[in-house]
């Protein structure tokens, strides 16, 4: 069957050639999901600063305001928006809603994602 995942195809996630849109949606969902899982681990670790006390937490927040960390946060926001909106499409179609319009839904949701990401980037980098 075309477009089906298999262990031998794992590295092909990163090969941009000969892709159908469904495969792009699948790859985007997996890559953003794995990225967010990694971020969740880091976020839980970072929250330990709260237990260490006021100085530790405030020092961490000062670090979080540096440009490099902000760019990293922007990636997390972008991954969250893409994974969330693509996930809504997956959830709907899993229950048989809009299965005939998956492609249109995917394109529409990714356009919305781009707009939201641009909005967040504006607020984070230019809005202060």
């Amino acid at each position, binding site marked *: 069957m075309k477009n089906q995942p*298999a*262990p031998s195809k794992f590295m092909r996630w990163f090969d941009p050639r000969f892709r*159908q849109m469904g495969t792009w949606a699948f790859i985007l969902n997996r890559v953003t999901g794995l990225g967010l899982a990694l971020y969740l681990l880091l976020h839980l670790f970072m929250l330990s600063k*709260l237990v260490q006390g006021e100085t530790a937490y405030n020092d961490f927040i000062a670090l979080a305001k540096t440009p490099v960390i902000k760019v990293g946060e922007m990636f997390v926001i972008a991954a969250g928006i893409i994974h969330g909106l693509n996930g809504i499409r997956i959830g709907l179609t899993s229950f048989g809603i809009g299965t005939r319009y998956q492609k249109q839904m995917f394109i529409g949701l990714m356009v919305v994602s781009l707009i939201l990401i641009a909005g967040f980037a504006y607020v984070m980098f230019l809005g202060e």
Partner: protein
Amino acid sequence: MNNISKPKAGEGTTLWLVKIILGGLVIAFLVLHFIVNHLIAPGGLLNYQAVLDYYSNPIIPIIEGLFLIVVIAHCLLGVRSVILDLNPSKRLLKILDIVFVLGGSIAVGYGIWLLVILTART
């Protein structure tokens, strides 16, 4: 683009359904978390005292605790689903399931412990 999400071998309908429902809950909690943390909380919780003030409202630790459980469960089910694509042996999958349950329980326990400590300091 005709493929729709469905349970894969080793996942089962229940886990697949739970993953999808938890995904919807994560979005709902995330929107709530974002609105409360960054739009309602003055200054966006960017200093220690602001965090303590935020947690002094008893409903907040409950919401954050539920969010933690939902997000960790969805995350681990998602990672498990990716691993299933690599076609692991039944034995390896069993070991991974134990690791996921233990890891998830530790992460939730750690998060709840953080919430209790912070709430006690308010």
